[in-house]
Structures are given as structure tokens and as C-alpha cells.
């Protein structure tokens, strides 16, 4: 089966869902609407000819100011028995930021989707455990969005500020710690008595 044949199959079966078929360096990708993504994935997985049983990768992409629809969720599928690969790119608009979860098809999608939610803020409907995974649960913002600054805008996580505050409080019990203040040598004075 050639490069574009699987993409054509998807297009024939779901003509209203496929927006565009793109190729790049001998890899084919299908850009889709997000509505029927679970159905398409289940079909690709269960079809006895296609057998896309290995979800190689799932990730989000932020096309801020580049495309009309801001986010894309990218599924890189691979079929171990037939040695074929296909890429699905489902478009997710910013104001309607959710997509169906594919965890019923591949169990391994669980953590991929949590990561995508964590870093992009795309919600996955039907996901069993939709929490942040890499960042602390009370983290603000979604770092891999393009409008998020690289250094986090010099804002720290609340828990980290607490640790710093605690370290500052405890250092007065230190003899001469790293925060040595020449005007205020608490430790030295105590010893000289």
C-alpha cells in the first residue's frame, strides 16, 4: 500500500471529516475535524486490513497566529503487522478546547493525553483521569502554548515559594550559612558569650 493510499481510504470513508491530506518527506498526514476522531481511530485500530495497533505518539501543537484553528492534536499511528504508518491531525479550536479521548482504543494514550492537557490545556472527553501530570497540580498556565514565556514570566510555583520562605526562616538557626549577612552574625554572637 502506497504512501497516500491509507489517507485516501480515510477520505473515502469520512469525506466530511477530512479537511486536507498533506505529505512531507514521504510521510502522509490527514488533517481532520475533531468530531469523529474516536470513531476513526477505532476503525483504524480494528480494521483487519489496516491494524493500526501501535499508537507511537500523541501530542499537541499550538499554531497561534499561524492558522485559523489554534490547536492540533497529532496522532502518529503505526501498524506493527503491516509496517505502515499514518498521521492524524485533529484540529481543536481555542474557544472549544476539547477532543474525545482515544483511551478506549489504546490504553497507552492515557499518559499522552494527560501530558497534552498539562502542557496545552486541551481537555480530553472520556479520559479516566484528567489531571496534570508533569507539572504540580496547582500550576497556573499551560507552558507549551506559544504565548507562555520560556522562563514562566518569573513567576514561581506557589509550593516553591513556600520552600524558599521556609529556607529563609530556618537560616537564622544556621551558624554561617550561605546567606551570610555581615551586619548580622547571629551565630557568632551566640558563641562568643
Amino acid at each position, binding site marked *: 500500500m502506497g504512501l497516500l493510499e491509507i489517507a485516501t481510504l480515510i477520505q473515502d470513508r469520512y469525506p466530511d471529516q477530512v479537511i486536507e491530506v498533506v505529505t*512531507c518527506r514521504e*510521510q502522509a498526514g490527514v488533517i481532520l475535524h475533531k468530531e469523529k476522531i474516536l470513531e476513526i481511530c477505532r476503525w483504524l485500530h480494528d480494521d483487519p486490513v489496516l491494524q493500526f495497533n501501535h499508537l507511537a*505518539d500523541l501530542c499537541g501543537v499550538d499554531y497561534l497566529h499561524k492558522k485559523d484553528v489554534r490547536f492540533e492534536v497529532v496522532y502518529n499511528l503505526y501498524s506493527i503487522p503491516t509496517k505502515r504508518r499514518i498521521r492524524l491531525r485533529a484540529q481543536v479550536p481555542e474557544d472549544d478546547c476539547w477532543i474525545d479521548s482515544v483511551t478506549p482504543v489504546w490504553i497507552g494514550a*492515557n499518559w499522552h493525553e494527560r501530558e497534552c492537557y498539562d502542557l496545552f490545556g486541551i481537555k480530553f472527553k472520556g479520559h479516566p483521569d484528567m489531571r496534570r501530570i*508533569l507539572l504540580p497540580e496547582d500550576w497556573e498556565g499551560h507552558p507549551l502554548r506559544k504565548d507562555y514565556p*520560556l522562563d514562566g514570566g518569573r513567576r514561581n510555583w506557589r509550593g516553591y515559594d513556600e520552600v524558599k520562605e521556609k529556607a529563609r526562616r530556618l537560616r537564622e538557626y544556621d551558624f554561617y550559612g550561605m546567606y551570610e549577612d555581615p551586619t548580622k552574625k547571629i551565630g557568632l554572637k551566640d558563641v562568643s558569650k
Partner: protein
Amino acid sequence: MSANKPDLKLIKNDTPGGENEAYTVAMGPQHPATHGVLKLDLELDGETVIKCRPTVGFLHRGVEKLAENMSYAQVLPLTDRLDYIASMANNVAYSIAVETLLGIETPLRAKYIRTMVMEMARLTGHLLWLATHALDIGAMTVFLYCFRERENLLDMFEELCGARLTTTYTCIGGVRQDVTGHFLETLYAFTEEFPSRVKEYETLIDQNRIWLKRTKGIGVITAEQAVSLGLTGPSLRGSGVDYDVRKHMPYDAYPFVEFEVPIGSEGDVYDRYRCRMEEFLQSNSIIRQCIEQLPAGPVRAEDAPDLVMEYNPAKKVAADATFSSGIIKLMEDRDRYMQGDVYVAAEVPKGELGFYFVSDGHGRPYRMHIRSPSYIHIGALPYLCEGYMVADVIANIGSLDVVLGECDR
């Protein structure tokens, strides 16, 4: 350490405060046996794990975000810090991915050298895995034996590129410098010696009764489940699925060398261990073939971009029109930085390491996603641990061979 998985339905949780109430044990993130900073919340009924919830992210450094602000060549050193046990393999995987994106054809000699160093990285990775896995289960001697050979390999890495762990040896379009004759001789002598060393490890643990009791029938995962979970590498092959990126999507010099992919059958800790032990010998044989077949020629493609990502100093380059990116761009060969996306995978010691690039026509990746095997493997940990004893959790973590630097990125 019972070999039989107990039926979870038989275990009843008593009311809170009761005698048989399930209790939760937090394991990690500073636990020495979790190979880094992995945290596991284990819900226990006596010694049996009812529920296992892994928490990751303690080493999340934002490599993907950082990469979006760097040129393709500058990202290469960051890949060292993913799987720092076998960083050479990451370098190769990254280089292949970028070469596919930019359409650069690597010279044959560089391909052979890369295959060689990648297999060396596999040896170092597996040696460290064996050392720590055995140490966790309780075999101290294996640790010292493995580090003896690992130091030899690291010394060779040092001779090759000046660094022991974070090598950054490859570059986009080849390798940074050619190998020396002395290096090849040392490596060849090592490969002659190494199979006997593998035998040495096997005499220590392969038929050891304690080892068998701790590993056989533990952490069983069926082939279907393993594929669905997305396991790759020896962890998948231990369950009897023949999937190896080196065979399925050959890259570099793998089509030119002969090797077998060892496959297990039971899918337990012991089979995964056996798969990796077989891979020692296969990798050893690949290194030998590479040295024997090593062709002459350049080690870097002529059109390989250098650090500032100008295409070729001889050709005409100009600053990017939109100055915000600050990247020097090509004038003649515009489609070098084409728009589009690629997903390229390579087989690193842990499994399938994939890079997904989105390029918007600039010298920087618009989006780089790293499909790291350790991340997926830790996600599979609950399926391996639940129903077994607490002590088997350690064996399971060890058998999946996870590195948290790669998991959290």
C-alpha cells in the same frame, strides 16, 4: 513473592480503621530503587499492591519549550540530557530526525560510525540497567562487574569525543570527527572480550534460584496488552511481539549488518531480562560487523548545517527578514527549511525514541515533541504491579528500564 497473581476480587477492603483496611505507602521520589525521582503511591492490602499510582514530573525541565527557542543544531546537546545513561543513542536518533526533515543524506562512513556508537550506547545502557536491576533485587556483585565493562566503554567514548556521558558526538549530517585507528583497535579488542564477560554475569544470576524466584512469573503482561499500552523495546519484545525500529524502519547502517531481534514468550520480568542479555551479544556482533565493513570516505555531509544553521559558508546567506527569530537563513535553497512535519523514530536501549517536528520554514523547530519510551513505560507500571507483592514493584521498575530524565524531559 508468590508467582501466582492473586485474584483481586477476593481481596476485600475493610471499613476505615478496621483491621484489614488498605493503607497507602508513598514510595519515592527520593527512594534509591526508583532510579531517579519517580514517586509511586501504593495502596496495599497487607503486602499485596491493590493500586499503584505513579507520579512523574520531578525532573521536568521543559526541554521541548527550550528547543523551540533554539536552532536545530543547538538542540542536540539537550538530547544528551534526556537519557543520560546512553546519550549517544539519543544524539543519533535526533540527528536522523533532523536529517529527514531537512533532507540531508549522510555519508556511508558516518552511517557506519553512528551505528557503531549507537550499539556502544546500547551496551552501556544495558550494562547500567543490569547493574542496578540486580542491585535492586539483591545481587551486589553484578553491579561491580557491570561497571567494570561500562568504564571501558566510557573511556572509549572519551577517546572518541572527549566526554564520558554527555557526548554530543553526532551532528546533523554526520558525526563531528572521524574515528582513529587506535579507537577501532581498542573497541575490537573489547568486542572479542565482551561475550565472555556476559557469560560471567550469567553464571552469577541466570540460573540463580533466588533470581528465578524473584523474576519468573512476576509482572506478566500479555502481548496484546503490551502493544495497547505502547510498550516498545525489550519490554515489548519480552512479551513476544516482534517490533524493533531497527528492523521495521531501518536507518543508518542497520540494513547492511546482520543481527537478530531476541524475543521472549512469557512477558514476565525474567523474559525481559533475557531479551536484554541476548541483545548484549547482538549489539556486540553489530559493532564487530561495523568495524569490519567500515568504508572510507567523509564523515559529514557537504550540505550539513553548522551551529548557526547557515546552510554552507560558501553559499549566500542572509539574516532572516523577521528579525525576531535572529536566525541566519538561506537565500538560495529556501526549501531546505521546508514547512511541514515529520515523525522519525529510532531504537534506543529503552525502546522507541521518536521525534516529532513541526517546521515553519525557519531554522528553529516550531514544535518538537519527544516520544520518550520511559514515559510510556512508567505509564504501564500500574498494569504490571497491581496484584503482586510490594517487593515485586522494585523488580518491575527495574525490568522496564526507566530513566526519569527521559521520562520527564
